């Protein structure tokens, strides 16, 4: 049992060290405010990419409506803190739950669809959310909401990101996560082996939406303003590209993809005229030379650092 746990704890220790180092750099002023914003943006994108990977990479349901879930979280949390004085963290949790509810509502009718059809349906869902927000006076219409308290600090952001990664990774590496992977691998066989495929697709959608919603809430409370335009389908594609770039189906890949693309975007902002060209060129080169993503579909595991690899035969004999 302890062997199973080892890679998990190495991961936690690594995350703590990473947090400590960055915290020291921030307090000593080596990292300035711009750097802190970039770090928070990276964390938001990590949350989005990891949660989308659960739907697209693990369960194999091609969804491109992730910005829709994100916008629900952003708006719900912003309204709660602006109009109802709900404490920040509670507002985040509620916004995540509301997004998850939408995940279930969207999931039930659309998950009968496969592949391209599902992609188009989820794309439509994302656009519907945006149009509804655009035309609702209560949430500010096209100009959106502004004056949202900027309560997302580096510490809170890191904590939520860590929880997202740990919870989703724990889910994937369990019998329930294997059920999702089985659906991706062969839906007919999964169903014939006693997996309730509809239920697990909905669970994947709900979990993915939950964390996307929280990420949306965190981003709203970082960047002060939200408007429907920032949650269009390009945002959905951006998240999808992070997942594919890192390696569809691996959590570590999604994290790396999110970090690489966010850094790239931030660096390229200084060259606005060349930005999209370089970005596109990198994606094309990437797909030619590493079609399975930076880390491939198996990803990177802290297991390699555990002295002895966990073998099921060991745990049986001992």
């Amino acid at each position, binding site marked *: 049992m302890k062997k199973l746990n080892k890679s998990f704890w190495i991961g936690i220790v690594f995350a703590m060290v990473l947090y400590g180092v960055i915290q020291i750099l921030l307090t000593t002023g080596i990292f300035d405010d711009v750097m802190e914003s970039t770090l928070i943006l990276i964390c938001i994108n990590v949350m989005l990419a990891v949660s989308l990977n659960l739907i697209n990479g693990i369960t194999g349901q091609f969804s491109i409506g992730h910005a829709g879930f994100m916008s629900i979280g952003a708006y719900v949390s912003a309204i709660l803190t602006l109009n109802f004085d709900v404490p920040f963290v509670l507002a985040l949790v509620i916004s995540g739950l509301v997004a998850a509810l939408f995940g279930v509502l969207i999931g039930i009718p659309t998950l009968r669809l496969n592949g391209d059809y599902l992609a188009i349906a989820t794309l439509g869902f994302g656009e519907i959310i945006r149009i509804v927000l655009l035309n609702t006076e209560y949430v500010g219409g096209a100009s959106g909401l502004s004056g949202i308290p900027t309560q997302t600090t580096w510490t809170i952001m890191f904590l939520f990101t860590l929880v997202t990664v740990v919870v989703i990774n724990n889910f994937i590496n369990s019998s329930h996560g*294997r059920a999702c992977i089985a659906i991706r691998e062969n839906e007919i*066989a*999964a169903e*014939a082996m006693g997996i309730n495929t509809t239920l697990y697709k909905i*669970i994947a959608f709900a979990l993915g939406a939950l964390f996307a919603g929280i990420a949306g809430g965190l981003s709203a409370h970082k960047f002060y303003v939200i408007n429907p335009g920032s949650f269009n389908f390009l945002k959905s594609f951006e998240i999808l590209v992070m997942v594919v770039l890192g390696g569809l189906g691996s959590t570590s890949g999604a994290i790396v993809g999110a970090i690489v693309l966010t850094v790239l975007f931030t660096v390229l902002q200084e060259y606005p005229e060349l930005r999209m060209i370089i970005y596109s060129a990198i994606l094309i080169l990437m797909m030619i030379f590493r079609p399975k993503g930076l880390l491939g579909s198996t990803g990177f595991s802290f297991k390699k650092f555990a002295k002895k690899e966990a073998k099921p035969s060991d*745990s*049986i004999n001992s």
Partner: protein
Amino acid sequence: MTASTAEVLLDVQQASRSFGGLKALSEVSLHINRGELIGLIGPNGAGKTTLFNLLTGVYPPSSGSIILNNESVGGMKPFRINRKGAARTFQNIRLFTAMTVLDNVKIAFHQHAKHSMFTSMLRLPKHFSGEGEITQKAMDILKIFNLADQFDELAGNMSYGNQRRLEIARALAAGPKLLLLDEPAAGMNPNETRDLMNLIAWIREEFDLTILLIEHDMSLVMGVCDRIYVLDRGMLIADGSPLEIRNNPKVIEAYLGQEA
């Protein structure tokens, strides 16, 4: 032929299935008693796999009833039928190719998992005991099929024969009462086929199974089956002991055509 109802595990009455205007199965009635090994044969396109698909819920029957273990399962979803005790293999192997051999078998144990999603997400002690139990049981099954030393291999990288065996192992892991094997020996050489048949005979005893087997290899079917059903063009044309089937003129006609 007539068995007391207590012994009947699977009872199919007048089951039909049509796809548009095509009647793939018409009014097929058959029964399987507990502990029997039944063969299902017929020329290509006779509807053997369609019958399997009805029995396992891939399609609902257009009409007729399917009773498994005294419970009507016609039109149930495949995962429910699997949980009621009918597991199958596929004619064209359907393994989870990018998963390891061990994980393939673990999937079938998922329905018996004692730990909930939330204990797994939070890594509570129940998660470890539940996962440990599944791993243990899956390894036990793999040992029976001599696949234990390849547990870490990706299923898609295994030899064809081993993939076939793994599929049976996976079906067995679900804990079925009725095992449906769709051409388990397809593509195997005579030696492999013989080994496989010995294995099937052995697991039948060991796990107290009832088996329905589709097979093209006549010598094999004739050798191991208690009774045989013959399908042709969606209709049941004969049933009986291997000897009766061998001498049945209708069966010979279906396979070889009418005498000129």
